[in-house]
């Protein structure tokens, strides 16, 4: 092993050789590194990706600012509390992510995703403009809606602004376009057929108000408020608005009706039928103090006058219960 005094010793030669090999390895490493980032490789770069006018680099800044890596993985690096986000855009599509992010505490319903498709920019990015075509094109969105839609998630609501949501989607669009050399591996089986995929108990499934049941009136709830409650759930309103005074993403509905609301411009207004109807149709016409414009979408294309009246009736029925 080591040199004893007086012994013939090749230690110095060996050591110099080891250092020479190390130098060779450093050269190999640098050469490989240089070859990794040349343009001719065709790897996608974020400066070339935009989503509905948002920039993927800005999205990366948002991704870091919220420390998304502290719960999720991206290209497999990060924490293991939530799923990997690298290919989410490819699987679930932009409309589903747009519906999810502002009220991350709740899984989007079909109507909430459909609502996002009303936005021409989102529909253009998705490549489809009907919910049926969307769910066919993005099966992961269909699976998420059917298994989880309307339920609470395990993610906290985060205070994303309208722009931040768009930028994050742009970043996820960029990552899903990246060539990650086949990772994550594509499953060869349909996991939903396995016992590990827990079926949702029927009792927990959200009450569904379909267009058919409304028109025939067969399953129509007795009072307007009850219909409004079902509509609110089905259209994803409750993902942001609690039936209490609690603020989830938007203001809680408990005790809202008839109260005086202070607007961002300093004026105040009474929350009556006309005000609430206007909020549902044109949410940014009057912005409430402490809230940001653009977070709530317009339901003008989604709900007819009767349905809006039912939802307003439901809000009217909610006393100001403490959360």
């Amino acid at each position, binding site marked *: 092993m080591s040199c004893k005094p007086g012994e013939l010793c090749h230690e110095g030669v060996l050591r110099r050789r080891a250092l020479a090999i190390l130098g060779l390895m450093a050269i190999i490493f640098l050469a490989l590194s240089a070859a990794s980032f040349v343009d001719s490789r065709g790897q996608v770069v974020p400066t070339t990706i935009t989503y509905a006018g948002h920039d993927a680099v800005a999205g990366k800044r948002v991704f870091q*600012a919220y420390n998304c890596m502290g719960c999720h993985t991206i290209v497999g690096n990060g924490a293991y509390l939530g799923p990997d986000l690298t290919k989410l855009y490819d699987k679930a599509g932009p409309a589903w992510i747009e519906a999810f992010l502002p009220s991350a505490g709740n899984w989007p319903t079909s109507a909430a995703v459909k609502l996002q498709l009303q936005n021409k920019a989102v529909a253009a990015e998705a490549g489809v403009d009907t919910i049926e075509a969307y769910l066919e094109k993005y099966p992961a969105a269909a699976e998420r809606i059917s298994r989880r839609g309307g339920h609470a998630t395990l993610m906290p609501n985060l205070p994303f602004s309208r722009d931040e949501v768009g930028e994050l989607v742009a970043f996820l669009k960029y990552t899903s376009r990246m060539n990650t050399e086949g990772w994550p591996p594509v499953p060869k089986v349909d996991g939903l057929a396995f016992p*590990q995929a827990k079926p949702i108990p029927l009792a927990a499934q959200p009450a569904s108000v379909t267009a058919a049941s409304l028109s025939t009136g067969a399953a129509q709830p007795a009072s307007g408020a009850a219909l409004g409650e079902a509509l609110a759930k089905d259209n994803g309103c409750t993902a942001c608005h609690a039936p209490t005074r609690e603020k989830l993403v938007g203001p809680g509905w408990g005790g809202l009706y008839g109260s005086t609301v202070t607007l961002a411009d300093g004026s105040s207004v009474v929350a009556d039928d006309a005000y609430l109807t206007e909020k549902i149709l044109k949410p940014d016409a009057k912005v409430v103090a402490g809230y940001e414009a653009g977070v709530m979408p317009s339901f003008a294309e989604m709900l007819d006058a009767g349905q809006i009246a039912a939802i307003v009736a439901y809000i009217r029925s909610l006393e100001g219960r403490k959360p």
Partner: protein
Amino acid sequence: MIRIEYQTQRLSLRFFLVMLVLFFFQTGLGLMLAAQHIDPTLLAGTLNFNIVRTQHLNLAIFWVLSGFIATILFVGPLLSKRELAAPWLIKFLFYALLAVVAWNLATQILAQQGIAGWWMGQPLLQEGLEYLEAGRIADVVILIGFAILCYVVLRTFPPLSRWNEIHWGLGLGVLALTAVWMFGLFFVERLDLQEYFRWYVVHYWVEGVWEVIHISLVGFLLVLMFKADIKAVGYAVFWGISLVWLSGLLGNAHHYFWIGTPEFWQFWGSLFSALEPLPLIFCFWHIYLDAHQDAKPIPNMPAFAFLLGSVVLEQVGAGILGFTMTFALTNVWSHGTWVTASHAHLALFGTFGMLGLAAAYYAVPLMRGIERFDQRAGRLSFWLVFTGMLGLGFAFAIGGTIQVFVYRTLGLDWFGGDVAPAMQVTKILVPIFGIVFAAGVCLLVFDLLTLGHRRPVVSNVPEPIAASGEFATRTRWSNWMTGWEAGLWLLAMWVFGGIITLGLLSFNLETVRQGSAVFPYMMAGVGYPGLLLVTLFFVWRFLNSLEARSQASLGLAVAASPAPAGAS
């Protein structure tokens, strides 16, 4: 027992104490994370999981660095035969360390509001990259701190011509520590390029710099504890470091498999990082040789236990568990799952954490002028911490194997609905072993903080030698350990490591891809418990054998011991 010759050695005491306090809080945060994994709604919105995890990671880095700084300051004067240079800078470094820890604690919470403090394109307050979460302000303060450390070390050391391998190891170590840190000081737009440079810091710190400092410090602590020949240790230090760099430089490629860099990295990464255990086997072998080069009793058993734990967990956590997931064909499955958490906990705490604790157990009694101390708390805490950490590694590994199957093979990606429920049992095992670990940490921190300050237990103050007299009967567990036997233990560890590797590899089999978990679950069920139990029993055997020679030297139950196996 040596006496403190150089007064500036005492400056290391405050760093040791800070290390212990940070370690205590980091363990508490770990328990909190375990609880949040079981119920993710716990404190959601108040103190989100990512904030707690960030602190858990950052405090781990801070306390390991505190341990390094403390140990370097303690051995610096001994290596140089003179006082440390610029003691006032060291005092400044200490307050800078406290300030940066507090600042980072305060700024990380801003991630809940998405505030990074962007200024000229740089995140000043926090930057949300795993391990490098500290914002640019903290980054720069840390860089200054490293520069101070370099200055102190290099000014204290004798002229270059009189450097031995340990000087070279530490000198290059602190310089590289500073140099590598600079790759984390820039916002990078491309995700692949950012991950490429992020691993410069993380991988080259751990496998290039920390390991070099680790080898040098373990070497010198062995010189101090066993009066081992500094030439022989220097030989081991040189080749240890060379092997670390020869394998680790290109071994970094194992982080470049799936981040968007080209496929050729899979070849280089699989090949060279498979060599990364070599220096660890080498170190493992040397601690056996150095501990057995004479048959003298060991006066400070807790210090040696932690040093042994450090080298053994380096072998098991970094060497073997790292090896199992280093091939592209196994890594494609383990990547991004709890399987990697098992490796990370054993390797990081084991290798670097235990070294700091060993050095603290060695240096704190000396600095407090305690000739003999009650070693029972130290030993008990070692066993609690050691078994707790092995248990944590087991829980993460089994949970990770289930996660790979459910998440990757079946493609179920609903963590709340499908993945987490499948892992539920192991998610509960984590805090159970975590509590064992935390109990050890509380005992250890209390013991070291109050050593020499609390009243000795009057009834039974076991002197180190008398303490081992309790082992009146010698069992086969306490026979002299031969080199053959140590080799057999090592072989057994690697056999189980091989089983684990085949288990991860079996995820590629067509039957597994078609939804049968029998192979991977069986292999993991044999491999992980086997490896961790062999590790536990090996350390038990090693320490028993060393305790027994204290008796032998006292003339209690002297049995014919074979001569020490080939000293270096």
